[in-house]
């Protein structure tokens, strides 16, 4: 064995950062098919959500403008499933911190953003699978895209963007909370009130006035409405811009905060 360090590109170099990103993404995709809880969050839970909410609420709730509840609920379940799944990112990052993996990564000459970005990218791959799965199950029980292929693709793209924001927020939570169980709980508890005070399950107009005020500005309402517009048709531009603004805003806060936190954190 020689004692010379291997020739390596500068850690800051873009090609090197990209290579690190690919490596970390690969690590997380491997884990995706091997970690039992990740498999549940990626397959069982989305299917369960589609079937449960469609058949339990579908008989009672008849939102205006749709003939089948599945057409109304599925865009909402897209956000729900993605946001719930993202809680596992906080768990994984907190776990990496506790097991010393982040110490190991931080002592390597690798890109400083790669561990978090690679996790978010692997989440995106999972989300694409989850969206396809839910769309397939939804289609089997009556769901249809009503606004054409381009709008359908835009809906999937927007849902993926929501997923990206959720991943980075949960990564930040994982780094701050540091304990895997608490991080998972924080990731879920942060989402549940927002989901239920949004247009996910019922039209905002059916809520009491004081709640409507909040529900209208709730980012979940904004993104679900945008997705719904893209799936069902009708005016989309305002909804989509508002949703993109929310997503951009959340990323603008969570990405730098998470990377900064990552750079200064060590195992307990």
């Amino acid at each position, binding site marked *: *064995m*020689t*004692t*010379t*360090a*291997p*020739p*390596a*590109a*500068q*850690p*800051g170099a873009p090609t*090197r950062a990209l*290579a*690190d990103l690919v*490596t*970390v993404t*690969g*690590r997380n995709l*491997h*884990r995706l098919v*091997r*970690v039992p809880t990740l498999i549940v969050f990626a397959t069982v839970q989305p299917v369960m959500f589609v079937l449960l909410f469609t058949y339990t609420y579908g008989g009672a709730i008849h939102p205006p403008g749709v003939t089948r509840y599945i057409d109304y609920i599925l865009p909402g379940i897209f956000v729900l499933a993605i946001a719930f799944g993202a809680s596992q990112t906080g768990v994984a990052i907190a776990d990496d911190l506790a*097991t*010393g*993996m982040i*110490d*190991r*990564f*931080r*002592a*390597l*000459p*690798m890109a400083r953003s*790669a561990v978090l970005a690679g996790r978010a990218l692997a989440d995106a791959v999972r989300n694409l699978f989850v969206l396809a799965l839910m769309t397939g199950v939804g289609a089997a029980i009556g769901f249809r895209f009503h606004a054409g292929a381009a709008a359908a693709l835009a809906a999937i793209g927007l849902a993926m963007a929501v997923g990206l924001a959720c991943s980075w927020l949960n990564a930040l939570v994982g780094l701050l909370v540091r304990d895997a169980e608490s991080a998972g709980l924080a990731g879920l508890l942060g989402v549940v009130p927002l989901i239920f005070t949004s247009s996910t399950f019922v039209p905002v107009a059916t809520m009491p006035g004081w709640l409507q005020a909040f529900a209208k500005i709730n980012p979940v309402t904004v993104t679900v409405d945008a997705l719904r517009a893209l799936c069902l048709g009708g005016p989309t531009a305002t909804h989509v811009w508002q949703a993109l603004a929310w997503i951009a805003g959340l990323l603008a806060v969570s990405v730098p905060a998470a990377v900064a936190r990552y750079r200064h954190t*060590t*195992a*307990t």
Partner: protein
Amino acid sequence: MDTERAIVAEGLSKRFGPVQALAGVDLAVPRGAVLGLLGPNGAGKTTLVRILATLLPPDAGRAQICGLDVVCQAGAVRRLIGLSGQYAAVDAFLTGRENLKMIGRLSGLGRAAARRRADELLELVDLTEAAGRIARTYSSGMRRRLDFAASLVARPAVLFLDEPTTGLDPRGRLGLWRLLGELAAQGVSLLLTTQYMEEADQLADQLVVLDQGRVIATGTATTLKARAGGDRLELHTPPGQDPALLAAALAGLGSGAPVIDADVGRVVLPVRDGPAILPELAARLAATGLRVADLALRRPTLDDVFLALTGQQPTSPGHADQPGPPRRDGSRTPTAEGRAP
């Protein structure tokens, strides 16, 4: 650029809230040398390693690895170092080979080179047969060895090992000692922290003893042992016989007063030249009719050194895995070292 010394630390200080983890630590490790960092839990060993490995910035002082500053030139330092922390930091859901390939890629190796290096290291740490299994199925010793292999992927010039043999069985420990000896022979500079006195004695050229964030002694194992005084004669009394009688019979024989440990029926007598007093010892035992169950002449161990330096017993190796009293809820209390006490 300091080309002679692999590691230099000057006046390193670090505080975590109310705890002064490091209070002005100086040390230097020549290239190719092995430095053993000894100290009880909470002494600041892990904090020191984390600062040197670029994971934590010091509050005051500075440190260099092969002449590169660990704060300003952290990126360059990371290309020279390997780190094996207290935890077996391996991905439990990747196979042994995948773990090492990943570290290789992240260290800047190409795909083929990372694979070759992974296979080499799996061979080195005797994990070739288990290479295709996910690390979750490994024993703790196997994980520890995989973690050690991961620290070697980039052929580091300076290797930090934080309690490297914790969790290894005696055979695994010997195997790791042999590997560390080989690395040192190849010119790799090593800094290893340990609570195992035997380990420091076995591996290190130089020892630094850390206590409450300060260096309280430096030197070779031999010079430190000299500070703990000469040999010790240990006599165990058989059950039913008062060890005080034995101690009285030994009065004036050694270089100091005999010390009685009544709990285990032991009398320890400090002596300058152990073998020379044995005839006189035998004569006195015969004259008093006292019997001994066991007798041993012992050179001072690093435990004795520690006792002489700090006035307290370090954590014994047998308890190193569960150093602190377990808390009822099973949680771990952060300490000065930022780890379980």
